[in-house]
């Protein structure tokens, strides 16, 4: 009953926020790759018989374009309902994933219980997790202001989040078919989620390894599935856009080369506005690789906790993608309740949370001062972008470090830290 009420409340919030049409135009929410206005423009051009990929406004994929063209014909002015329903469905998927995720974590815990230090019993998950987790996730998702604003602004991030949620659910259910499909669609839409294939592959290989299957064959199977899905999607797009590949340049080319420097909450726009021309391609490469670079070391270090990998990858994408928006971050924040066991090990909870709240509030204020009042300049807004990004980075690194620390305490117990050597207290350090 409480759950139904929560969903109704979430829907009501989203519906009432959608009355503020300026949300669709906010740079923090709508970026060139997800804005509703651009989508309409693309559909309009498509209806006129012009290719939307000929211009520089439209960056959605051909399947999305067709989908919206059909959707607009059916729904006309009720497209908001689709977004709200989709967002609620996403929430359902994530909380379902919470249920299975909790089961997965409890199962893993059972396996290592013998190795846990007797002092660290309190660090273990309680069996109640399986009931609590879905509820927490639903609250985090439905009442998350970032996601409410995102849905009210009708960005296509709503769709992307839906597929990410599906991928998360598939991961917790060990479902290769759905997992690769969801990740492929999400990657087809916004490219970056392709790195989520790492946690899925690792998880499936581990699970199937325990059932006696060889790791290589499992990995190869996941890869083959993904490639198959991706080629299907791209082939379909090729057909839909009349046998032309121009959409590749307008979608993925746009995401990779960052030609448009419209301000957003990321670090790309001002960086590449102020970039020296001969260094542009070098730094583009560096910044795009920056995100990819983290995949392999993190996968090697945290292969035992694929859920954590999944979460931190979503976080890294939402910070380091070329056109980040509040919706991406909102989804990352709503995945955080998966890790209640790591909360005691967070170092800077209050300061990062404060930073995130402060920058979210200050961003529109400084935007107003820069663009409308002319009493500030681009540096003010960019400073906020930097702080906002660092707050998110702190959350991600804290999350990962917390896992490292928890592992340590589970293994060694608390008292080691109080042991004395030569009259000095020992210090816990990464070495």
């Amino acid at each position, binding site marked *: 009953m409480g759950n139904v009420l929560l969903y109704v409340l979430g829907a009501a919030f989203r519906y009432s926020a959608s009355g503020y049409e300026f949300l669709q*135009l906010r*740079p923090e929410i709508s970026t060139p790759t997800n804005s509703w206005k651009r989508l*309409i*423009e693309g559909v*309009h*051009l498509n209806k*006129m018989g012009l290719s939307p990929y*000929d*211009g*520089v*406004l439209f960056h959605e994929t051909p399947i999305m374009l067709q989908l919206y063209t059909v959707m607009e014909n059916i729904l006309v002015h009720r497209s908001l309902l689709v977004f709200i329903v989709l967002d609620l469905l996403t929430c359902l998927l994530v909380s379902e994933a919470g249920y299975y995720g909790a089961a997965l974590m409890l199962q893993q815990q059972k396996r290592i219980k013998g190795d846990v230090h007797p002092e660290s019993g309190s660090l273990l998950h309680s069996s109640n997790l399986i009931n609590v987790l879905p509820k927490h996730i639903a609250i985090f998702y439905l009442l998350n202001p970032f996601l409410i604003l995102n849905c009210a602004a009708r960005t296509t991030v709503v769709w992307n989040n839906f597929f990410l949620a599906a991928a998360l659910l598939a991961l917790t259910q060990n479902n290769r078919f759905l997992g690769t499909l969801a990740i492929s669609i999400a990657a087809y839409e916004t490219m970056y989620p392709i790195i989520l294939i790492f946690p899925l592959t690792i998880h499936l290989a581990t699970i199937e390894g325990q059932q006696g299957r060889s790791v290589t064959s499992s990995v190869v199977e996941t890869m083959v599935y993904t490639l198959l899905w991706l080629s299907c999607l791209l082939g379909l797009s090729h057909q839909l856009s009349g046998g032309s590949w121009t959409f590749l340049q307008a979608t993925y080319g746009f995401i990779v080369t960052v*030609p*448009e*420097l*419209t301000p957003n909450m990321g*670090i790309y726009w*001002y*960086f*590449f*506005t*102020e*970039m*020296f*021309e001969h260094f542009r391609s070098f*730094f583009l490469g560096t*910044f795009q690789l*920056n995100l990819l670079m*983290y995949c392999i*070391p993190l996968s*090697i270090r945290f292969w035992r906790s694929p859920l954590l990998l999944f979460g931190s990858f979503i976080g*890294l994408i939402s*910070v*380091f993608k070329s056109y980040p928006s509040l919706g991406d971050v909102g989804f990352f924040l709503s995945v955080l309740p998966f890790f209640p066991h790591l909360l005691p090990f967070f170092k800077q909870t209050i300061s990062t949370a404060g930073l995130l709240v402060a920058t979210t509030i200050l961003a529109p204020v400084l935007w107003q001062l*820069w*663009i*409308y009042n002319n009493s500030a*300049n*681009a*540096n003010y807004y*960019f400073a906020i972008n*930097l702080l906002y*990004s*660092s707050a998110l*980075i*702190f959350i991600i*690194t804290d999350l*990962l*470090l917390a896992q*490292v620390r928890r*592992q340590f305490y589970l293994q*060694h117990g608390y008292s080691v*830290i109080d*042991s004395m050597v*030569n009259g000095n207290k*020992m*210090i*816990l*350090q*990464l*070495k």
Partner: protein
Amino acid sequence: KMMSLILCAVYLSVTCLLHVQAQNGGDHEKFTEELFMKETPSGHVYSHFQFTTRWDSDIRRRDNSREHYNLFPRSVGDIVAAYGVQELSLSLTQGLWRYEKWGYPINSAPPGAQVIARFQSSVPDVDKAWEGLTSALAGLLCSSLNNLGRTESIQPEYSFANQGVTGPDSLGTNRTYLRYGILPRENLCTENLTPWKKLLPCKNKRGLAVLLSSGHIQKYSVYFSLGLDLKPVCYSTGEEGGGCTSPGVELVQSVSVVIDPVIINKQADNTDWNVKRMFGIGVTPACPLAHTSTIFIDTTDSTYVLDPPPNEYLYYGAGMPRKLAVYDVKIFTEHGITDITAKHPKSHIYGIVRAPPVLFNRHVVGTGQERGGIVATIKNSCTTGITVAYLELIPWYLRVYLHTLKIETDGVPVKPINTVYRPGRDRERPYHLELVLKLAARSTTTIRIDMEYSILRWTEYPPDANHGLYVGAAVLTTRLPVDGKANATVLAAEDSSLSHLFWGNVATDPVLKIYSETLLITVPTPDFSMPYNVICLACTIAALAFGPIHNMTTKKLVLVSPDQEEKSLLGKIIACVLSCLPTLAARKKKQEPEQTSDEDKGNEE
């Protein structure tokens, strides 16, 4: 004696013949210089200088057979031959033509520079030819027309129809050979006028061109426009009256100047004017190479008296004919430089001026540097409906949303008959919007489209970036209905000279071009002074993630005793300082006891 007399007569007749031959260019080339002056209802004086050179040489010839140039400027001929130009229309303008106050000019031009070029269908690569042509014209007229590359030009579909004769091979009407570009921020100054005057057969030494002294025009004019128009004309048609068998070429060089006599007279209600005070010199003898040299002064609605009186009066146009005072410069200046004065019996009364039948204005709406809209207003006060073509060329850095296009006539939404839209691409091509609309009689139509202002790379901003960026004028092309025709002076297609028009050859199909205002748009600017800081700060943020992730993925969490602790750089420095302190303190202690004993003593006292 008889012999010498005969010889003398022969000599005289030969020289006479040669002289006539030289004057007329043997009918192969003909040069006419004309000045049309008109006092506008607002009291301004509009002077339109027009120098027309006609030549029967085929414009399509691209070999060296064009080598012999008499009157036609060779520099223009070479450019035309090199790039296969069919038609060319170029204007450089300072100031804005006020249609509502001054009526329609003979040659409409937008503020800044404009080039319209049509290439012959034998040209293989039009874009390349366009780039070459604009660069050559830039060199010819010392202006920045070379900036009109591919990124600033479009191919209009309904505006700018053929001006000259068409039909013969490679003189086509295909729109793919047409290019149009506009530079709204281009200035017109002495360095453009001087090379332009050098294209005339008499340069600036003789004839009406002597009146074009840059100093005077720059000082007094409120509008100053320079034009160069080239088109093929027909010298003889085929037997069936169908196509043209021998196309020639016609070059029209024109200057339009609007001067406010009040400024010269320094009296608010005194609108008397004379040529000498406006241009610094009276009318000088005609250019000897000119076939005709004429001054026309429109006296239809004016109350002034011309002194000296004209050679004759001319009535032109049907219905309400216009009365023109005609001065034949060759006769008029027999006794040297002569001034023409216009004197009003009464002082000027300022009032509401009757606007011409079709008015076109445009402005930008919205606040802030994020987004805005362009609103164009077309007012049709004709008693019949008209069809117009509206052409908008918007630079790529303003991102236009076509779905926001709204066209309303007196508040009622209207559908355009035709829409041409080519979206722009960043740094590649501008947005091109062309609408064909049917406007009802006595109606006001507004066209509105929304756009977003993009933030550019810091090196792409023009100097003084906070001044803003200009959007060139929009063009409205229409045919005036019968009741509005008297308002416009449209030159005949077969011969562009004013004499041809005024002596009874009214254009059969007059097409009117109206230009709107240029727009100034303030786009967001970055801080130009701190690229290094921004690069450093953004990289720091990236490093914030890299550092901890690198640490936790390459290191293990272990317990260490404090002396084994691996310190950060800052920690190392502090440790170093701390380790140095005891020795320093020890050294100090050696000196301190004496001081302290002194202090103790002091305390005791």
